[in-house]
């Protein structure tokens, strides 16, 4: 009788320890695999993996809104695109091209876009939010597409890749392997940061907005302000993905600001599992892999979005939790 109350907290302590331990061991193993991967993969698949990670970062940024705050954004292409064009501005105007300036410019660009979108669209909820984010992203698309003198219009901008530099310490050219490691570091860091955010009091308020917005307001939280910060945070990480994409591919094109990019971001989320942060990365990888395999099997002209769209619809009907949905509670514990 006397031992029971003593045993209980110990067991809980043990269970918590093992959960954290399993999480971090899993994290390190996956990270290690991704670190080693470029050393063994051929050039094409190395680039492919880097690019999938970048799309994963974009999808993860949108998961903060979709999965945690319950706001489906159809406008993430605007943040991604502004990040891309911000980086392009830094890399074309300033010589020699500087990686860190590109990141700063990209974040400023996507931050301004996110502020604009957040201010107007957080007045609305649910589907209205989705529609207005979509329309706002098209505003940026039209501006970028038609303002040829600055953005290069339909042709976009081409620039050189910056060197990987830490001032006074380190300055080398990017190879596809070091670029992969750099992208991996950014994506892993973003994941840890966003995971911390979703488990913070701020993240808890976002989840309570998702579950019951009027009640959250009634408790006394300034829902509008929380939503705005969430959209801006999400926009900044989407912009970061845009910068990485620009650095990897050495161009910025209006296609990426087009609504299709936003749509694919939502697809990554639904396929991978919303509200898990890693799920969208898995979804992005799955999507890119399926696309690559389909175009290898049936040729370049094959409309890969037909089978993938059908898979997407089927998943919404039969498996709305996504591939990693079963692990959602565990990952957020």
């Amino acid at each position, binding site marked *: 009788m006397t031992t029971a109350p003593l045993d209980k907290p110990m067991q809980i302590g043990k269970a918590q320890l093992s959960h954290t331990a399993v999480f971090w061991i899993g994290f390190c193993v996956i990270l290690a695999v991704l670190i080693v991967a470029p050393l063994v993969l051929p050039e094409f698949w190395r680039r492919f993996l880097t690019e999938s990670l970048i799309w994963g970062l974009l999808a993860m940024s949108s998961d903060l809104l979709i999965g945690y705050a319950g706001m489906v954004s159809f406008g993430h292409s605007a943040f991604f695109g502004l990040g891309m064009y911000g980086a392009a501005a830094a890399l074309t105007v300033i010589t020699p091209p500087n990686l860190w300036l590109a990141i700063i410019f990209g974040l400023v660009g996507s931050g301004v876009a996110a502020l604009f979108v957040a201010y*107007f669209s957080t*007045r609305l909820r*649910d*589907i209205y939010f989705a529609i207005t984010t979509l329309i706002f992203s098209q505003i940026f698309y039209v501006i970028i*597409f038609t303002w040829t003198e600055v953005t290069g219009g339909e042709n976009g901008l081409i620039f050189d890749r910056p060197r990987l530099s830490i001032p006074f310490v380190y300055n080398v050219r990017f190879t596809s392997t070091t670029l992969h490691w750099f992208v991996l570091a950014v994506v892993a860091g973003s994941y840890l940061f966003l995971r911390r955010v979703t488990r913070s009091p701020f993240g808890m308020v976002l989840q309570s907005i998702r579950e019951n917005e009027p009640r959250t307001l009634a408790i006394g939280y300034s829902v509008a302000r929380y939503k705005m910060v969430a959209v801006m945070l999400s926009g900044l990480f989407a912009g970061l993905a845009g910068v990485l994409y620009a650095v990897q591919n050495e161009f910025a094109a209006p296609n990426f600001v087009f609504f299709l990019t936003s749509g694919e971001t939502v697809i990554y989320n639904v396929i991978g599992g919303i509200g898990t942060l890693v799920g969208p990365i898995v979804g992005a990888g799955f999507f890119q892999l399926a696309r690559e395999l389909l175009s290898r099997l049936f040729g370049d002209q094959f409309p890969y979005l037909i089978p993938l769209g*059908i898979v997407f619809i089927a998943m919404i009907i039969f498996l709305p939790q996504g591939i990693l949905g079963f692990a959602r509670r565990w990952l957020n514990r």
Partner: protein
Amino acid sequence: MGTVANFLHAIPLDLIIIQTINGVVTGMILALIASGLTLIFGIMDVVNFAHGELFMLGAYVGVIIVAVTGSFWLGLIASALIVGVFGAALQIVTLRPLIGRDPLNTILATFGISLVLQNYALWQFGPVSRKIPDPMSSSFTLFYLQYPWYRIVIALLSAAIIGGLYLFLKYSKFGIWIRATAQDRVMAQAMGIPVPLVYTGVFAIGSAMAAASGVLFAPTTGVDHTMGLDWVLKAFIVVVVGGMGNLGGSILAAIFISLLESYAAIWLDPSQAVIVSFVALILTLLFRPTGLFVATPK
């Protein structure tokens, strides 16, 4: 006084009249699309992302039927019927399992449908735009232009279809079912109204209207696989500006937005004139978030 007179003189009156007519004509097509969209939303709580693709599909079916039979009017009616039946099938397969779930699920599902349809059209018909020949070649003189009568006919036909929809909703048995379901789904079901059938019917009607507007619009420009997105975006703006689910508001907003864009096109490049309707949307969201033509709820 002199400056005012100069300013008034600088406004190209003939251009304004021409653009007013253009704006009303595109506004009526837009109203036809948006009223289908707002009908589906008002009754089913479904934001139909695939509406633009149904519009495009209708135009393509019209292209095929006009090419085979040579009759534009047969193409218009057959395309509306075919796409209407297709829409009903689409609703049964993809949207019926989602009844009762969060409306966000339906926006995702219809987005998936729009991707599939758009890529199917690209795959089947290729990127080159097709054309339906003008069903009537006569025109009248408007200042220095030969303005085709067909455009006036489009506006009148669209108005007739919308009027028909209104009468259908008001007086027919199915229309009364639809309105009863819109008011209270559970109560309607308790009274013996087959609500799932009403949903399918509403989606079919919305699809048929989108297809009809696609065929009507096709002769004025070409038909290609991307035409749906432009129009569905405009229709979304119209539906938000006019107030979601509000049929009268959508029609007024459609004409309002089209007129704004036409006037803007006098001074701006047409591709930039879209920004004017974006600005209208932003202002609406700022000052009248429930829509321009609805009383703001207290």
